[in-house]
């Protein structure tokens, strides 16, 4: 087991011992287990998934939408810090769809490089949110 902490600017979202964490990094998704080599990685906006027990199936995994951030892994602990983390309980498919439409509008109207970067990040985060909402819906069906 590896101790996993997921912290956003609005508080700690997850803090427990887990079997596996799937982290979206800029070089692709990596799976983190106990005794993983020490890594500090730049994360990409996407879906972060947690398998609490080795016997849990993919449908039992807990999913979070993250807007990038940093992951620090040192064998026994893994910490993920991101400015925005959305749990699957916090988002519905309709809300995520509406937020995605707003982010697309923002992307179209952005006129400076900083705004374009922020809009792109927000767009990717909302795509991840929509994905998390769909995963949750599938899980409940």
């Amino acid at each position: 087991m590896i101790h996993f902490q997921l912290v956003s600017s609005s508080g700690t979202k997850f803090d427990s011992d887990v079997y596996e964490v799937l982290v979206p990094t800029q070089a692709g998704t990596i799976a983190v287990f106990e005794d993983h080599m020490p890594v500090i990685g730049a994360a990409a906006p996407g879906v972060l998934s947690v398998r609490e027990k080795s016997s849990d199936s993919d449908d039992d995994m807990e999913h979070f939408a993250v807007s990038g951030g940093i992951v620090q892994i040192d064998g026994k602990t893994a910490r993920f810090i991101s400015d925005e983390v959305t749990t699957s309980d916090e988002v519905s498919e309709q809300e995520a769809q509406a937020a995605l439409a707003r982010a697309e509008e923002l992307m179209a109207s952005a006129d400076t490089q900083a705004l374009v970067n922020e809009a792109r990040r927000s767009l990717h985060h909302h795509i991840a949110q929509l994905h998390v909402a769909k995963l949750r819906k599938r899980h409940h069906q």
Partner: protein
Amino acid sequence: MAQTQLLNRRIRSVKNAKQITKAMEVVAASRMRRVQEAATKTRAYGEIADSIVRQISNTQEAKHHPFFRPSQNTAKLYIVFSSDRGLAGAFNSNIFNNSLRSFNEDKKTGRTSSVIVFGRKGARFFSRFEGVNLVGEYENLADAPDANVFAPVIDSVSNGFSGGQFGVVNIIYTEFVSTLSQSVRNLQLLPVPPVEDETTQKVIYELEPTNDAVLTEAMKLYLEAQLMRAKVDSSASEYAMRMLAMNSANRNASDLIEHLTLELNASRQASITQEMAEITGGANAVT
């Protein structure tokens, strides 16, 4: 009679002022509690961001990065957190005094000072101040804003730092210790100050996917967390100081009302005594 009317009018006006200060005290207290909760959450975020940057600063890659290496450039940028509104005791003047002390030290050592200021009061103060370059001003921020609110500031700080506009970045804000105690902090943000910490483990981390990508993302999170912590702590301190200021205004108003009421009673008693004397004098004259 005229004196009694005047005193009545003054008592009424002090009572009205007291009602306002009482309401402001209650509002400040409830907002402070809300911001305090946000401060606890932001602190956890800030501490982790801090510890990750500390781990990165131990790596060889970071030692050559401009954000970690002491700079030859003497220009200094201050990010100052003031408030949008007044009536918060010495909140803003403490911040301004600390800033002025730093500007004077810079002047003595031949450094130039620039300022990015949060809050209307600070924007007004620094725009009138000569010898300091006001780079940016931000007003009407929420008490505990979203992290992306700071994106333009982080952008201008990173660009200015990499572009050589300034070699040191400091942050000046009021730290919330407790309801009764708040202190002004003046901390160096960039270059990241080296930490001689025995507890920092000497683990050698691999930076993935590239050193630059990790350093860029980590610095963004670090600056965001520091600005966020400073803003939330400043808001909590502002409300705590306003609450105390309004509480003492309330007490002063009560004292004043008591004093004026005594004066009013004396004046009314004097006029009654005078009327009685006049009646008795009149009756004596008739008999």
